[in-house]
């Protein structure tokens, strides 16, 4: 029923929507999400033909291009066929009219019913949306935000439109009102098409079946709401989810690198994207179908950085790693959780080429890793369990951090020095001469681990394997190291394989968790699912024995 093709909307030189295509069928509920400034509201206003802007492209409503209609015809469509639930900022309702009259107004305006019939219909709607009868004759300022929103909703539905556009319908409400109103909105008659415009992922998940992610005036990803939110394929969608506080995901919140800029050539997200290629800055990616999802990305969405297929390692009689298959996507953290002796470190050492696997293969961006050349180590780096041991006591801090660059033969001595000092700053260590010339045995455990991290990052790797990076640190220092790693992930798009025996830490750090026992991966999935509903009894035991502050409560309940 709604068909948008190549919609470009600009205010003066500022192009807000840039070649947007969108389809909406009868009875479908589609949510458009994006951060503020993405052009969401402009989209809604354009469909209503209320946007005061330069518009190109077409919007067809039931086959008719609304831009070819006369103002008269448009008025007919507006509110009768397409209505809009405005973002409830205080000036939407007219402060001098009673709310019942305001709801009846569009009915009367379009001469659908007599004045009395219109008031009846308005009262009926208000009751349906939960406004008590005694409040009907109140003035808007006498109502709470939630009540005002109910009035606006009744207004939007007064003329029984075919398409309801909702702009941030739940955003300004408190959680309980939001819950109640969300239920109401979800249940309004099935045949009506709904377009939900919001920055709020919760609203989108409540009110829509389909989701389109808007960024820089273009749709970057679209698919079923559930699928997109559980398994985002576009780097922007994932970043948006990571930045959103919610009860589903368990990983610590992370912001999105940089900020939105306009105009941008090529892919609108490329300046903030951590997997951007050269092509991304010159060519606009088209929305393409990829594994059942439409994603606009030159790289086909988030790429799989490293995958491991059927990897085994036998030490005499012991099968340390047994047919393990895993994959790590660009910019995500995979936590490998298991007790000591489960084969986690062996797996890490195989990945790094310190052990040769007995069977199976390792693939870096789809290419099999045969003999590890220096290039491999430029992309994959590791921090070891014991920082004190992994740093040679004979080298100064600066020499330690410069060593990988030396081995790789990157730059001149001066350039290496600069790069090393810059990286040392990045891990929040002092860049003073005295510090750079000290030796590792003068540093604390936390500082040592930072030096180890700096040393691993100095080559700008894509994947960081962290083997129990906090095992030798107390909680306060450990937390700082983990935070630092999350920040580095946000800024650099670093992928991480986080190896730990501690599920409590894993759930804060990781997007996905793989549980390892006796060399086997027994369970793997999004961290939230593993933590909330583990399937294997071992995982349940692991979770039950994880650190808790209410140990006695936990045992007494059982």
């Amino acid at each position: 029923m709604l068909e948008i093709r190549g919609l470009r909307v600009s205010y003066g030189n500022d192009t807000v929507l840039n070649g947007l295509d969108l389809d909406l069928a009868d009875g479908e509920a589609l949510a458009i999400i994006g951060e503020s400034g993405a052009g969401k509201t402009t989209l809604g206003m354009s469909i209503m033909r209320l946007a005061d802007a330069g518009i190109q492209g077409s919007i067809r409503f039931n086959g008719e291009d609304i831009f070819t209609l006369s103002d008269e015809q448009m008025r007919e469509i507006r509110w009768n066929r397409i209505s809009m639930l405005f973002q409830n900022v205080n000036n939407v309702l007219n402060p001098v009219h009673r709310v019942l009259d305001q709801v009846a107004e569009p009915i009367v305006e379009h001469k659908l019913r007599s004045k009395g019939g219109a008031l009846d219909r308005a009262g009926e709607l208000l009751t349906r949306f939960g406004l008590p009868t005694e409040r009907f004759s109140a003035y808007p300022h006498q109502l709470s935000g939630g009540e005002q929103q109910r009035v606006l909703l009744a207004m939007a539905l007064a003329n029984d439109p075919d398409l309801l556009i909702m702009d941030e319908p739940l955003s300004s409400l408190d959680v309980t009102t939001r819950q109640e109103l969300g239920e109401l909105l979800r249940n309004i008659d099935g045949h009506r098409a709904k377009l939900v415009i919001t920055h709020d992922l919760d609203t989108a998940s409540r009110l829509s079946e389909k989701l389109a992610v808007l960024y820089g005036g273009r749709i970057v990803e679209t698919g079923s709401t559930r699928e997109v939110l559980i398994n985002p394929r576009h780097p922007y969608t994932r970043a948006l989810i990571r930045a959103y506080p919610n009860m589903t995901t368990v990983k610590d919140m992370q912001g999105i690198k940089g900020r939105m800029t306009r105009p941008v050539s090529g892919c609108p997200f490329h300046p903030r994207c951590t997997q951007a290629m050269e092509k991304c800055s010159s060519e606009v990616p088209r929305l393409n179908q990829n594994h059942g999802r439409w994603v606009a990305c030159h790289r086909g969405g988030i790429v799989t950085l490293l995958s491991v297929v059927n990897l085994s390692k036998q030490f005499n009689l012991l099968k340390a790693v047994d047919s393990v298959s895993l994959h790590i996507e660009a910019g995500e953290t995979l936590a490998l959780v298991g007790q000591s002796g489960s084969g986690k470190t062996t797996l890490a050492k195989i990945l790094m080429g310190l052990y040769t696997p007995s069977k199976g293969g390792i693939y870096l961006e789809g290419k099999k890793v045969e003999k590890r050349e220096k290039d491999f180590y430029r992309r994959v780096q590791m921090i070891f369990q014991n920082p004190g041991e992994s740093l040679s006591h004979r080298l100064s801090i600066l020499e330690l951090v410069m060593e990988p660059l030396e081995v790789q033969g990157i730059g001149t001595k001066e350039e290496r020095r600069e790069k090393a000092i810059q990286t040392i700053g990045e891990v929040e260590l002092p860049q003073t001469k005295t510090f750079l010339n000290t030796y590792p045995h003068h540093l604390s455990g936390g500082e040592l681990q930072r030096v180890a991290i700096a040393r691993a990052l100095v080559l700008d790797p894509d994947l960081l394997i962290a083997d129990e990076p906090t095992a030798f640190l107390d909680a306060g220092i450990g937390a700082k190291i983990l935070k630092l790693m999350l920040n580095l992930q946000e800024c650099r798009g670093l992928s991480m394989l986080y190896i730990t025996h501690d599920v409590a830490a894993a759930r804060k750090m990781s997007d996905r968790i793989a549980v390892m026992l006796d060399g086997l991966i027994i369970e793997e999935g999004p961290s939230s699912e593993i933590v909330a509903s583990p399937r294997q009894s071992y995982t349940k035991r692991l979770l039950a024995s994880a650190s808790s502050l209410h140990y006695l409560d936990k045992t007494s309940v059982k």
Partner: protein
Amino acid sequence: MHISLKKEIKQSQSGKAGIIILLVMIAAAVFAPLLSRYDPMQQSTAPLLAPSFTHWLGTNQVGQDIWSQLLYGARTSLMVGFGVGVLSLIPSILFGVSSALIGGIYDKIVMRIADAFIVIPMIMVAILVAAYIRPDLFVLVLLLAALSWQGGARMIRAQALSLKEMGHISAARTFGAGLFYIARKHIVPDLGPILLVEFIYGVKRAVFIEAGLAFLGIGDPMLVSWGTMMRDAMKFSYLNVWVWWLVPAGVALSTTIIGLTFISHAAESVLDPRLRGEVVA
């Protein structure tokens, strides 16, 4: 763990004593022409003179000045010692480190060769070869070096094997470092103390064997050596010459070896903390 080898040796009393002894010997060897008026090979005055102001330790059976022979003997002894020490250490490091790092069949072959050399009784071979080719100083050094690298190679290999598993070496490998880089930049420097101990062992052994061969009379007869001096002195034991002829040579040899032992003991305490007297913070 960060231990300074230099500090460790300086802090040990016996280490200090060892270094002093060695320095005295080196001084004697270097300044021999200044400390004595006579050429050790020159047959000066009468043979078998008792000590006097002209000949501090008297003369030997052909009238050579014993004091001067003693000083020049230190030259021979230390040259052979340090020559063999250095020359046997090079193959020890080469084979030991490469065996440990490369491993596999290469390691097996090298270690079997080392085992074969260990089984060969060094003194017997040295005596046999020396008796046939009458080696001069240089050939003697080469011969002893060729026969004494194997123990060091095994020690160094064992140490390198354990170093190889250490975190910082694994880390270096994960930067893409090759074996040569790791050997040069990490393993050999980390071997520091063990290399010193091996070196001193080599020196000590060579000093001892050189004296032994000379005593048996199969060294270069033109070479002034403490071993030769003792051998000659023994022939005239009935004349009571031993006091100024046999004993000084014997004492010089023993002192040198004791000095070296002191140093190697102090260096060893770095390797084995149980040998340390007290914990130094």
